[in-house]
């Protein structure tokens, strides 16, 4: 089982999980994903934070350059003493300076990575901290991306006289034996990375898919290949199912357990669901979960099915009236296989989408 490694390296969800793994403590000689960030004393400062430019900066740039009122980079890394910050954005491929949405986001992030970073993060006075904007990018994307960032930096300087943060790209690509990370010397120096580029981060095993365990299994706001999307969906469903089994297995008897879509999604995404913007994609993922729960309910044997009800304002309610009911529900849930579902299926909106639990 060997996925298209080039496509995998481009996948923003893979990139985000890879970045998280790079920051995980692991045994020095027995690493799983080479802990480049951890070794370089870079810690995860925040996942998906909502950032805005301070009012004076917004005033200074309005009508001079395009920018976003709010941005949500994928990850922020910080050095141990929290003096330097790396704003990390995952992108499948590079984009040009005229790409409206991406360029707007990049300009905003470049400004945030500048001297205002202390204020934006609320950690100190202007100039006390330094920032860098880094992109995780798929194979052969770094060169063009660096060019774009250079152009955007110049545009900011020329039109606003404001100082941007420095920038750079981590290009993720396969070698013969592993997935490697390539980065320019200035990124290495700024972040005080312990290794020279390129670094082997995941070693290949024969006929084996190099995916690491996913911390964040799903993000409805990104473009993925069909295969990656199906895997993400499968992991999301496995985690939802696992959560339900845990909660029912550990419940007091008799009791009734209620699952809301939000609770299930928050659990399954390590809390990221609640920071996703409320838009069509977020509604889509809720529909996905509702459909998944309906599928679960449909495979529960008929007499037991009466113990599971759905109330639009509350969610799914499992009525565990006695131990036998609990044991039987658990047994049937444990036999449920999300892999047998049609993971490529699109869930269409319904009239009742707004009746959230």
């Amino acid at each position: 089982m060997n996925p298209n490694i080039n496509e995998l390296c481009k996948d923003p969800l893979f990139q985000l999980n890879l970045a998280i793994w790079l920051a995980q403590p692991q045994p020095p000689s027995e690493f799983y994903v080479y802990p480049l960030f951890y070794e370089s004393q870079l810690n995860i400062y925040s996942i998906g934070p909502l950032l805005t430019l301070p009012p004076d900066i917004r005033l200074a740039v309005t009508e001079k350059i395009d920018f976003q009122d709010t941005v949500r980079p994928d990850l922020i890394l910080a050095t141990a003493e929290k003096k330097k910050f790396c704003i990390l954005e995952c992108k499948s491929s590079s984009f040009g300076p005229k790409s409206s949405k991406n360029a707007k986001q990049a300009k905003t992030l470049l400004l945030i990575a500048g001297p205002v970073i202390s204020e934006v993060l609320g950690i100190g006075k202007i100039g006390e901290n330094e920032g860098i904007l880094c992109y995780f990018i798929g194979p052969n994307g770094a060169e063009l991306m660096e060019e774009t960032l250079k152009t955007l930096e110049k545009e900011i300087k020329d039109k606003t006289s404001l100082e941007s943060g420095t920038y750079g790209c981590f290009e993720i690509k396969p070698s013969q034996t592993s997935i490697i990370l390539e980065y320019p010397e200035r990124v290495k120096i700024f972040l005080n990375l312990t290794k020279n580029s390129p670094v082997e981060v995941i070693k290949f095993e024969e006929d084996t898919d190099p995916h690491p365990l996913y911390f964040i299994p799903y993000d409805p706001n990104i473009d993925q290949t069909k295969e990656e999307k199906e895997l993400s969906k499968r992991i999301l469903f496995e985690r939802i199912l696992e959560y339900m089994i845990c909660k029912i297995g550990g419940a007091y008897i008799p009791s009734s357990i209620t699952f809301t879509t939000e609770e299930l999604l928050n659990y399954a995404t390590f809390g990221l669901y609640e920071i996703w913007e409320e838009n069509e994609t977020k509604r889509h993922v809720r529909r996905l979960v509702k459909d998944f729960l309906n599928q679960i309910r449909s495979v529960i044997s008929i007499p037991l099915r009466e113990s599971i009800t759905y109330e639009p304002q509350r969610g799914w309610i499992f009525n565990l009236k006695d131990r036998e009911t609990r044991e039987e529900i658990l047994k049937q849930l444990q036999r449920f296989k999300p892999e047998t579902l049609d993971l490529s299926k699109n869930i269409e909106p319904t009239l009742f989408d707004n009746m959230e639990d």
Partner: protein
Amino acid sequence: MDMEGGMSDIDISKEIKSITSREKMIRYLDGYSAERMEELDERKIKRPLVKSYMLEHIGDTGRQRKVTDILAEFGIESQKIDENLYRILDKKIDEGYMGFLEVLTPRYFVFYTLHPSDKADRWIKNLVLNSPELDHVWLSGLTFNVLWQIIAQISKPHRYVSILFVHESIYQIDSEIYGDENEEDKEISLSLDEEDVIEVVERRASKFKLVDKISVVQEKLSKLQELYSPLYAISQLRFPSPVGRGGHDFYDNGKVTNRSGNFRDHRSHILYVQKIYDELMKRTEEKAWYSMFKETVTIPGQFQKLIGAPVIIKFGEPLSKETFDYWIKSTFGRINNRFRLWGNPIILGPKKVHVYGVDKHLWKPIFIELTDKHLIAIIPKGTCGNTIHRLICNIQRYIDPSAKAYIGDVEYKSMVEQSSKGVKYEPEY
């Protein structure tokens, strides 16, 4: 050794019932232990030895209930002797008085009993099996190796130590047996109570006891372990009693048999090991628990930090394809399996699977990558740290006795060593 003229369960129950204070319990069990020691010397045991079972409440402090309330759910009455000591009466199946429960901390307690091993073992096992809030205290081979070093330090070199090594490569099988789907189906339909009777054909098993002078074992054991890896899989270890002959046999599932003539010393050793275990548990959970930590900043909104560390168990030698396949199949293909894990394996290669699963001992989540070379686990916050210790115990016992474990970049063994430092050894004599 045979038991001669033994007493009935009813007699034992009556004696337990008659004890009304802590002092009486200590005196009674002390005298009882001394009598058994004499009988052991004469090799004529008349009554069962005193046994203790170290138990643990799940680590989730938010929902911790009193142990007496948990027992009540199973028809077990806890009759208060003092603030932390109870007489235990099993009313549900008319077992009578089973023993005494001492609550050491809200998280840890110990059950003392005079009932024979088969009865007491079964009773405790069923209790743990049926309660998602209770578990044994799990002492892995790696923990025992550190405890053994402590024994070597605190005991006189001429004293005898007894060490039991158990390793069963139950997943090392013939391909012929592996192909037997019907057998697998049969096992899937077994109920929880039948879990123990599942027979898996063993291909390699090492179980033997080493009894020798501490000085001799100290000189030889580490060399022998390098030569023969099952010797890392210590599953029982005796702390020699400092007050006389015999000692206290600690098992990997927290059972402790008093083979000394002194109950107070027996209890002291339990308290000592429990303190080390508690410290180890705190360190493990502090480091390994994954959670999204929310930090509010002035402008704007919340910052989400991910904190935690993966648990990595590295095998000494890669597993064969057959062993790997059988391990995965027998663990995740059966609702009831030795590791008590549930999950649907996501197959990523001939020797790599991911499982976003459940530790069914306590019904808590665990995400695992299994390959022929390692097991990596992500333990979300709230999953009890003893999931990790049990996992290490089971890996050493059934997969690879020489496996090394890490919590993040810290070797588990050094974490046990650190946990034992600063815990005072306080025998009551």
